[in-house]
């Protein structure tokens, strides 16, 4: 066999690069041709000459960066095989956020899957992850330590509703990333029978409207009017993580600070943010799912892009799978990848 995985994908300053197809995947700098896995700002940046992504991801990028976020764009329909340069390319659901996809790259019988960020847990706001058998699986490792096993999200949302019933005189302020997490929390609240209005920080509005236009039922949402914050006793309010400790949130009646994130499983993380009600809800695969997914792809080799790569690489070695960390810089700004990043996400 003449083709090797390293011919299909290499590492450049901008990130992963496919020389045979002359394109980058989720580059962190402007490039000539970019294939984008999903709409989070650390993966989808503005300023590329040409972008290929799922229709939903392209619309998310247009909402975040404006219609002129790139020179030209091409829709990749899920499951459809496309030719880019000398390779064939296929986008497959990743289960991370609306429109998120894994990118399957193939040439002369060698198949590499760039999974982007992904999860296996059910999510009412996006299509579920599909396992694609491959030779090389490129995985994230945001929660790549065995201390991370995410609980059932239903129990977490029930905690929130129970706390709201216990403290009807207080407002519950839920920090959640503006793309994906916020809408998932809304959809989960609806599944658990919360039928009151859900109040939104202004930064949540455009993307939530986009989700609704894409046909995802989220029920009644209301933008918080600054002057009316003091009247929102008993309300559930969703805002960016950076706002939960802001003066913005202090104007609500005796606010209960909540945060929806996989990091909330670790006490110290919750305390660092001054969180009183931690909600362990994550859009990333937990440790058992990372390990299970690697096994299910049947990959003989695993590359780890970002997160807690050391542990996952070690585990692969212990079960006889070749693995290496890529130490990609620039990823992990989606409010979950590193706890410090949560305060720096842009207002979308």
């Amino acid at each position, binding site marked *: 066999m003449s083709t090797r995985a390293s011919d299909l994908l290499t590492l450049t300053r901008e990130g992963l690069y496919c020389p045979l197809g002359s394109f980058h995947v989720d580059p962190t700098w402007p490039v000539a041709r970019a294939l984008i896995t999903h709409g989070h700002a650390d993966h989808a940046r503005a300023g590329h000459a040409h972008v290929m992504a799922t229709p939903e991801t392209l619309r998310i990028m247009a909402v975040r960066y404006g219609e002129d976020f790139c020179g030209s764009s091409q829709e990749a329909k899920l499951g459809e095989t496309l030719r880019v340069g000398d390779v064939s390319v296929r986008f497959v659901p990743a289960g991370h956020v609306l429109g998120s996809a894994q990118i399957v790259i193939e040439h002369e019988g060698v198949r590499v899957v760039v999974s982007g960020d992904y999860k296996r847990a059910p999510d009412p706001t996006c299509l579920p992850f599909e396992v694609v058998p491959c030779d090389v699986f490129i995985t994230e490792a945001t929660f790549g*330590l065995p201390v991370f096993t995410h609980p059932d999200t239903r129990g977490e949302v029930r905690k929130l509703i129970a706390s709201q019933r216990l403290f009807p005189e207080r407002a519950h302020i839920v920090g959640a990333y503006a793309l994906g997490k916020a809408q998932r929390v809304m959809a989960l609240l609806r599944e658990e029978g919360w039928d009151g209005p859900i109040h939104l920080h202004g930064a949540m509005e455009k993307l939530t409207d986009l989700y609704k236009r894409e046909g995802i039922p989220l029920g009644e949402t209301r933008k918080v009017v600054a002057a009316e914050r003091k009247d929102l006793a008993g309300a559930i309010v969703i805002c960016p993580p950076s706002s939960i400790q802001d003066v913005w949130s202090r104007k609500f009646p005796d606010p209960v600070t909540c945060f929806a994130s996989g990091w909330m499983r*670790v006490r110290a*993380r919750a*305390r*660092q943010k001054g969180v*009183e*009600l931690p909600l362990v809800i994550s859009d990333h695969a937990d440790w058992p799912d990372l390990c299970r997914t690697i096994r299910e792809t049947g990959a003989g080799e695993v590359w780890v892009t970002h997160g807690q790569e050391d542990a996952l690489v070690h585990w692969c070695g212990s079960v006889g799978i070749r693995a290496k960390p890529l130490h990609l810089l620039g990823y992990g700004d989606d409010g979950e990848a590193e706890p410090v990043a949560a305060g720096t996400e842009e207002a979308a």
Partner: protein
Amino acid sequence: MNDFAHLLDRLGYEPRRNAKLRLLQDYFARTPDPERGYALGAMTGSLSFREAKPALIRGLVEARIDPVLFRLSHNYVGDLAETTALIWPAPAEANEAGIGHNNPPPPSLAEVVETLATTAKKDLPGHLATWLDALDETGRWALLKLVTGNLRVGVSARLAKTAVGALGGHEADAVEEVWHGLEPPFASLFAWIEGRAERPETLNPAPFRPPMLSHPIEDRDDLDKLEPEAFSAEWKWDGIRVQLVGGRDREGVQVGRVYSRTGEDITHAFPDLAEAITFEGALDGELLILRDGRVQSFNVLQQRLNRKSVTGKLLEEFPAHVRAYDLLASEGEDLRPEPFSARRERLEAVIRRLDHARIDISPLVPFADWDALAAARADPASVGAGEDADAIEGVMLKRRNSAYLPGRPKGPWWKWKREPHIVDAVMMYAQRGHGKRSSFYSDYTFGVWREAPEGGDELVPVGKAYHGFTDAELAKLDRYVRNHTTKRFGPVREVAYGREAGLVLEIAFEGVQRSTRHKSGVAMRFPRVSRIRWDKPAAEADRIDVLERILARGEKEIAPGASLQEDA
């Protein structure tokens, strides 16, 4: 145990003192004896049992989980108990039907404490594993915190006592008064609080009294708000705060006790002081080492404190001394409600009568106004401190008409520490922190310039600092570390440093001592980041000479009799 664990968990997430108090009161009201008494014991640090060493816990986990994965997890989470609680695999039966009918029920706190108190060392791992299997995640976390003697969960002993007192409408100080002499599970305390029995007798003839603490003066503005004529000033000695208490037991035998400021009985470590307690009463003062009548530096005191066994040689080389500054009780009379000025007069009389070489009185520092006091603080030798000036770390201000109030009341007592030393150093390594800082790169090893053996200049590490910055600054420092990493060693990262690259940290510190652990041969006392010099080029950071000079000044204390060196 699960119930107690969930209380601790909720307390940990609750920032508001009054809400914590409500949670505690509610727990004590609804939980029966002896469970609540052991809970009180756990929160006040008064349980005694064979503690489990971290190595034992690690051994239990590593029999179940790949040690490498466990170590990486521990590095990341930053807390052994929490890592173990999260990573502990569910026992096999529990997975099958949801409820493991073969598993024992989770243990009560009383069962845990009573078992630990009597268990043999070899049986400890077995008990722990059984309990860990039976408890939920939060229960495992609390159990491990408890058995490793690490149960700090945002509740002070004081707050727990306040909650217990409030059950029966008593103040915390009323609980403190009877506290020494009681033992877990405190059945007689709860019986009294709930009005079912008489106040417990204090059996301790020489009880500890909670100390009065001071607030810092941060700058002259703080000072200018106070009226100088209402205050007395004393030197703030660089030793450790102790309480000397003497009394007679029921047989009439004299008992002398030395307590630390937290109420720990440390008499056994200071037999030389204990024999000096020939009075009946309680002295508040500073423990110092005196040689030929001269106060030695804190470095010297530390050499005595660090020793485990108290030998005759140690007593001779490091003679302990107490410099008293308050009198809390005398001849059975409680003097704490008296004003400071009256207590001071009584103290002077007691010390005079005692006439013991190991106990003297901390002199008052005369001053007319704040400028005069500022001058005294800047140069203690000029106002009578003489050769002890180097052991003075500032001045204390005590309002003359103030009673002795336990805790840290705002207003009556102030400490005005001398200016710290300052050095500009370059960040070289960063390590992830623990607790509130876990996963942030919050511990910084820094270095200063020196001549390299092979010529030219090099940075040599001289210390480590992990506080002094705000949370917002920490976030920026953490980001800086991540963006300037050159090498990784587990939880430690090396950052870029040199003449052309590097971040300058202004480090404040209290002193310098010789160190064999640091390559530079010096170590700093209480180093902390006083400013982040984003603007300053690393090449302009300080040289090691700055520290050497401070060290040279301090060493004349360590080597008594050596000729005094000129200050540089």
